[in-house]
């Protein structure tokens, strides 16, 4: 306490948010230094959920890593599977069956819809809109998870996509059910937008908050909706055109400001584009085997797969950004090196730059808008 009451001394306050905090989306800790309510320094602390995934992957066959990828970003198991499958296909030169390609795209886009709708709900939860938007989002998410369960046997830990296609074809009638769901989804999305997009409280709370400038976003190698909200046109589905994405005409929605509101809105627009892809894919999906013969042999006997010496990098536009799997083979049934480029982890590194100068309550909203899953950050 200053002896002279007329000139108060301001001291910085260090606050530790987390690791057990409802707003941190898992076991994540932010060491914030506050000047009053304003953040002057913020240090993310991670590693509480480290599970040694890469080392485990180096000690098992290539196929045995698939169930572990489900547990990286546990919202998007299907796209995680797809990323690893792409890397293995490049490593071993495995062809993919036509129906398998379509099924994989359908699963990946359903995952994107699921993830974006759920993360919007979580973002609103972080802003203090407890329950309502989140439960609306989860109601729709549950329907997609039901489709995943019908196809793969598990709602979240799908373990479904395999090199060369998918593990087993979808049950009869599945495509018709998904078609009905996809055609009915815009109605929900319109309702969801009525609830959120024009809401004055949300606009006040999010516009101009956590602005990520274009140059900084590129320099920090941020990917996904976070990058596109800053106005950078970079989507790996377009840039790399992996799988059969070149066949689908779709737009890449871009933001202008790069604030929390743009991130929210880019996600909503991305859902609409995903629905277009889904509609086209469900219309064009051919009959035939869901997995190529080489892929089927791989599922049956994982230890017989000895890819030639070399390395491969498979990357996909996961709902959170660029998800890459890097594999080095030494000719044995196990990878010599197995590395994952996790979008949540890379996107999280930019948190401090977005939070500086903002209020402490905004830090929670900014964290929510990055869309992280700690299972993927810590691996």
């Amino acid at each position, binding site marked *: 306490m200053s002896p002279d009451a007329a000139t108060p001394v301001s001291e910085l306050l260090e606050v530790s948010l987390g690791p057990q905090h409802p707003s941190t989306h898992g076991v994540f800790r932010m060491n914030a230094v506050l000047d009053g309510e304003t953040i002057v320094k913020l240090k993310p602390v991670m590693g509480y959920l480290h599970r040694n995934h890469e080392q485990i992957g180096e000690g098992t066959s290539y196929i045995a890593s698939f169930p572990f990828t489900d547990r990286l970003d546990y919202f998007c198991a299907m796209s995680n599977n797809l990323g690893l499958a792409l890397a293995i296909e490049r490593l071993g030169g495995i062809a993919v069956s036509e129906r398998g390609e379509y099924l994989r795209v359908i699963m990946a886009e359903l995952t994107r819809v699921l993830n974006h709708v759920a993360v919007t709900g979580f973002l609103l939860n972080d802003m203090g809109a407890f329950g309502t938007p989140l439960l609306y989002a989860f109601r729709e998410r549950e329907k997609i998870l039901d489709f995943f369960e019908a196809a793969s046997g598990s709602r979240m*830990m799908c373990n479904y996509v395999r090199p060369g296609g998918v593990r087993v074809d979808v*049950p009869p009638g599945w495509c018709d059910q998904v078609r009905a769901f996809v055609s009915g989804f815009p109605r929900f999305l319109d309702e969801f937008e009525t609830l959120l*997009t*024009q*809401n004055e409280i949300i606009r006040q709370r999010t516009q101009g908050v956590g602005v990520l400038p274009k140059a900084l976003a590129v320099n920090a190698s941020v990917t996904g909706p976070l990058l596109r909200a800053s106005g950078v046109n970079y989507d790996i589905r377009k840039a790399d055109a992996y799988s059969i994405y070149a066949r689908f005409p779709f737009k890449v929605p871009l933001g202008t400001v790069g604030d929390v509101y743009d991130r929210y809105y880019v996600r909503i627009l991305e859902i609409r584009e995903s629905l277009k892809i889904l509609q086209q894919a469900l219309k064009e999906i051919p009959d035939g085997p869901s997995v190529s013969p080489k892929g089927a042999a791989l599922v049956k*006997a994982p230890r017989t797969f000895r890819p030639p010496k070399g390395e491969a990098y498979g990357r996909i536009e996961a709902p959170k950004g660029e998800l890459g799997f890097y594999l080095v083979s030494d000719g044995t049934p196990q990878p010599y090196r197995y590395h994952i480029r996790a979008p949540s982890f890379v996107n999280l590194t930019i948190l401090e730059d977005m939070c500086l100068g903002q209020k402490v309550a905004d830090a929670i909203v900014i964290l929510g808008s990055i869309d992280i899953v700690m299972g993927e950050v810590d691996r």
Partner: protein
Amino acid sequence: MIVGQGIFQGMAVTLKTFFQTYAWGRVLLRAVGVKPSEGLVTIEYPDVKQKHHERFRVFPFLVYDASPDDLRCVSCKICEQECPPQCIHITGPAKDEQGRPAKAHGRTYPVEFSIDTSICMSCRICVDVCPFDAIEMDNAYELSSDERKDSMWMTKDALLKPNEYFQKIKPAEAAEVDARLAAKAAKAAAAAAPKPAAPQTPPPASAAGAA
């Protein structure tokens, strides 16, 4: 735009959702010209149970055909090797007094087969790799226990279930497996039928092994 319009529009959505979860509310909504979408989607779990899809999978079990000693597992240990979290433990194959593999119903069999369900992540890789269709995924899910040793360490006795059970819980999958096994048996019978005429040596050897 009027200030507050967005908030009121949003509130209209929540009000509509509130009404459409009740039967009287749906009548009311139709009366004012609003088309209600689906109503209450939650179920009251312990009283009402969710209907799961056929492929819904929980921990694996061992299939036996006619009697519990006629299990399909020959103790080849492929699943033990391939299991990603290494939760399958097999002792075997069973040996007779001379140290030769003992056989039941013409097959070797495991002395002990246990799955540590506190580690098992129900990934279904053991089912994919099994060459004999001996292991399949269960769908019983209310398996919580207050300790992690005895009840979660499932031994052979707990894992053995008849093929009829498999046919009951997963009809389509079981039909596929049965057809595959029948084709395999027919092929084996066809291969075995013309053979005894030419080489007469294998049957006495296997007879000695059985004795």
